[in-house]
């Protein structure tokens, strides 16, 4: 048993989905993703039992690149997020009728494969490859199945692609530089590399550029809202639920340990930038008219907090960041799914054309509300645990950071409740067809998981804690 089984399942599933044809594709994709989740759970069990799930075989001799996958608590948690969300995202695709279904589901699985690989790779080069190929499927998903005017969409998505691609090229440069120094891409050897502080600074910022764009940190976020609003629902979910976590994860796994002294030196600036992002994102969110853009900017705000926690270089920050990645992933997928459900009925993303839904479908409204409340980090939801940790970590760095970043709980409540009010409440305006049982399953799962982990987060904390500690030791 090793962890590559998950990757194999996803890749084979992607191919099988494409081959199976349009009729079967969605079902096979769902089965595959569930199988991958099952495999992950099995792996988790084995991992908890102390089994070594790592893979390490030579792939390329010159340059020395190994097909190395390493499993620790952090990777495991991210893998759980990826394979856990994938079935939900695929299932949420069921509400929409796509043309050429086999292609979109295959691309989704392929993207899952790439993202899972990113979280597992223990070789810089392999990691970079996974990181980069994850871009391709989402580009096509957004391009082909996105919404809105094709010309505008094309532009927005191309911008997204080039922007993120640009960032990651700088990361590639950094990796190459490290390779020329150490002669290996192996993560442990890279960790052990002795670099002077100038080099570390350059490495730090090369990585930062890649991750700041991917995460995104203000002011590198300009691609985000447009891409989210142009991408189809499933694409947005993949982007916001999993893909932006790739950037955050990478900060933890690669950037900070590889450029420790620079990370410490620039910590205040980067944290301040992230916090500025929190506020800025929240403020911009307030006046959004398009619900997808609203959620995109809210995501910007939330992710800013996660980034701030990561760059605070404290164990609480790391822990909170990982927890918040998981919970934000769940919740944002739920929110975008809700948006899709509404879109399927109203065919618009404009908030002003919604309203009076709660009165027609209270069940839907309740589920939406719980997810919305989770996103504003109400205690007993999973998000609260993460946000608490994050704010606490910022507090440990500087009380003012915590206070300023903490305004997110006010502003977050402000824009979320405002959105909820405008979308769901009020008297009946347009008729809203009640959501069906099948449609609600995804939401119910998200709600249950969010609350469950809000009450019992300790297993996850225990899972990630040792790996985060070791990363922190590496930095210190």
């Amino acid at each position, binding site marked *: 048993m090793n962890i590559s089984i998950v990757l194999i399942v996803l890749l084979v599933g992607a191919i099988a989905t494409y081959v199976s044809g349009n009729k079967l594709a969605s079902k096979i994709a769902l089965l595959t993703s569930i199988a991958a989740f099952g495999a992950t759970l099995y792996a988790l069990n084995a991992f908890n039992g102390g089994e070594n799930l790592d893979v390490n075989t030579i792939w390329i001799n010159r340059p020395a690149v190994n097909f190395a996958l390493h499993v620790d608590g952090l990777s495991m948690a991210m893998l759980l997020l990826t394979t856990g969300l994938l079935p939900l995202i695929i299932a949420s695709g069921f509400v929409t009728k796509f043309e050429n279904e086999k292609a979109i589901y295959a691309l989704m699985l392929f993207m899952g494969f790439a993202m899972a690989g990113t979280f597992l790779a223990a070789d810089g080069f392999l990691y970079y490859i996974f990181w980069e190929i994850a871009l391709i499927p989402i580009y096509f998903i957004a391009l082909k199945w996105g919404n809105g005017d094709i010309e505008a969409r094309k532009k927005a998505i191309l911008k997204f692609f080039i922007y993120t691609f640009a960032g990651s090229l700088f990361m590639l440069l950094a990796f190459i530089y490290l390779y020329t120094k150490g002669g290996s891409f192996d993560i442990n050897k890279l960790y052990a590399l002795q670099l002077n502080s100038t080099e570390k600074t350059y490495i730090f910022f090369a990585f930062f550029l890649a991750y700041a764009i991917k995460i995104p940190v203000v002011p590198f976020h300009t691609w985000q809202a447009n891409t989210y609003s142009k991408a189809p629902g499933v694409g947005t979910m993949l982007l916001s639920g999993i893909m932006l976590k790739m950037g955050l994860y990478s900060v933890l796994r690669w950037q900070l340990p590889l450029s420790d002294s620079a990370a410490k030196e620039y910590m205040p600036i980067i944290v301040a930038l992230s916090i500025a992002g929190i506020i*800025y994102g929240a403020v911009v969110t*307030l*006046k959004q008219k398009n619900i997808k853009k609203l959620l995109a900017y809210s995501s910007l705000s939330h992710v800013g907090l996660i980034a701030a926690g990561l760059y605070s270089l404290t164990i609480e920050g790391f822990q909170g960041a990982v927890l918040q990645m998981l919970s934000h992933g769940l919740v944002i997928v739920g929110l975008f799914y809700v948006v899709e459900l509404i879109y399927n009925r109203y065919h618009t993303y404009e908030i002003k054309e919604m309203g009076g839904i709660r009165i027609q479908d209270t069940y839907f409204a309740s589920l939406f509300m719980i997810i919305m409340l989770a996103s504003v980090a109400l*205690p007993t939801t999973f998000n609260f645990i993460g946000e608490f940790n994050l704010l606490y970590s910022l507090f440990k760095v500087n009380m003012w950071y915590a206070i300023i970043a903490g305004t997110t709980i006010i502003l977050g409540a402000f824009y979320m409740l405002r959105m909820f009010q405008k979308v769901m*409440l009020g008297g009946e305006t347009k008729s809203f067809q009640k959501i069906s049982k099948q449609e609600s399953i995804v939401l119910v799962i998200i709600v249950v998981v969010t609350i469950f982990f809000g009450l019992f987060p300790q297993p996850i904390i225990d899972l990630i804690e040792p790996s985060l500690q070791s990363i922190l030791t590496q930095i210190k």
Partner: protein
Amino acid sequence: MNTTILLLLFAPLVGFLINIFFGKSLGKTVSGVIGTATVFISFLCTLCLFSQINSGAETIKFHLADWFTVGSIKVNFSFLLDQLSVLWLLFVTGIGTLIHLYSISYMHDDENMHKFFSYLNLFVFFMIALVAGSNLLIMFIGWEGVGLCSYLLIGFWYKNQDYNDAAKKAFIMNRIGDLGFLIGIFILGYTFNTLEFLEIKSLLGKDVISPSLLSIAALCLFIGACGKSAQLPLSTWLPDAMAGPTPVSALIHAATMVTAGIFMVTRMNFLFDLTPDVQNVIAIVGTITAVVAASIGLVQNDIKKVLAYSTVSQLGLMFLALGLGAYEVAVFHVITHAFFKACLFLGSGSVIHALHGEQDMRNMGGLRKVMPITFWTMMISTLAISGIFPFSGFWSKDEILMTAFHANIPLWVIGSIASIMTAFYMFRLMYLTFFNDFRGTEEQKHHLHESPALITVPLIILGTLAAVGGVISLPGNSWLNHYMAPLFAHKAHGEHHLDSQAYMLMAIATIGALVGIGIAYSMYLKKKQVPVADNEVQGLHKVLSNKYYLDEIYMAIIVKPLYAISTFAKNFIEKYLSKTVFGFGSATYALSIQGKRIQNGNIGVYLFAFILGICGFLIYLFNIRN
């Protein structure tokens, strides 16, 4: 014992779950009964616990489950039952039961009654968690949980967007306080590595923390309390919260939730005792709130708004007591206030019910004869709140003022003015509602009736309690002070000797109240004045009816600028940021056009460039070489 605690805790939750999932199919009455019964079970459990925890007895710590760890801080689901929490639980669940009972009748016409009960149950659950939690985070769960329920219940009639606005406002203003609370939690957690009350208490004795940090922590916690208990400057949400159904106003926005701030400060008394500066702040904020809210209450015409401002004002008095370190006095007033204010709200609900939703006192009057039970229970409560001997409010308010007198004369003066105003506007309310002739429409007049027993019985019980509640803490022989003694480090403040000074103060307070009543009597009963329409008010009156323009000020200095910034950011910054970033792209794109001009298809140009290139090469290389 553990079973009792579990039952206490989870009975309302079970009620919530039953009602939310099956309420609709169970029918209105059944869901109402379930809702009431579960809270009643909690009440019984509390009684049971109350009988075991007496003054000086060991407190009960109950560990339910582990929650999570933050760094080196362990946070658990654990509960602390001591004198304070049991006392609080007693009136929370007790009044809760009564209000549930009342709601069965009051909400019977609403199609979403099961939802109403489920939210109420959920509220009680969170309130129990808030009160019984043994660490700051459990308290915070309850704290935010009750805020959520408050949001849900204020916006219970969600078809009306104004109500939704009120609900949203309540939630957000509470969140401002919550941020303060959270920062306070961080400071304490960071300093003590624990969030358990008892551990913090024992660690505080050791001299490890800088006083300034401690002050900041206390101040942050107090900001949290301000939000929840509607103290200035975070007070404006509470009057708006009257949009909710009246039982909600009674339970949440009068008797229980809004006193959570006082509970928290009392719970953390060992902390506040060490930070006299913050105590001063609390006292001042409380006093100012008391008088400001009371003055607004003078001119309100909505029956529930009057009560709401009265609540804010009374909460201000409680904070005054807290600020002076007289925690048991504050608790005493919380309890009596819970009785009479709940009674008043429920009474007003009864009136509104009778008038089919009419809340404007200008359209009431003369209800005394039609609704005798409502009238008399409300009258008792009004006397109590006005501080007339021997009703409960007299004792508790008197103790607050007496404490203030001993500590700080100006605060006492202002507090007294607030209570005179209280007497005035409460009697104004009574006169406008129950005396003179009915001023409503003919149709309303036909339907006037006394409310059914389910409504009047809670009124009677609460009215009785409002009348006699003072006995728990009579001056000189205070059971309450004695009971709560183990909680506080110092000797109870409230134990004033009944010397001549005390009598004099009581007399002054009573006279003040009577003056207030007298003015109200002359204006509204004798002269039969009716407040003028909203657009005719002028001068100071106008300022008061517009609540000192607080909402407008907030609108102008916070919300509007925020929106303006948001619009600016959305339309300008975003646009230009995006343009800057992609300006590189546009620039290369523009270069491309220029490039296409060079590539004009003329072979001469190509050759020329070629030869230029050669020349450049040769010149450069040979210049370097030589």
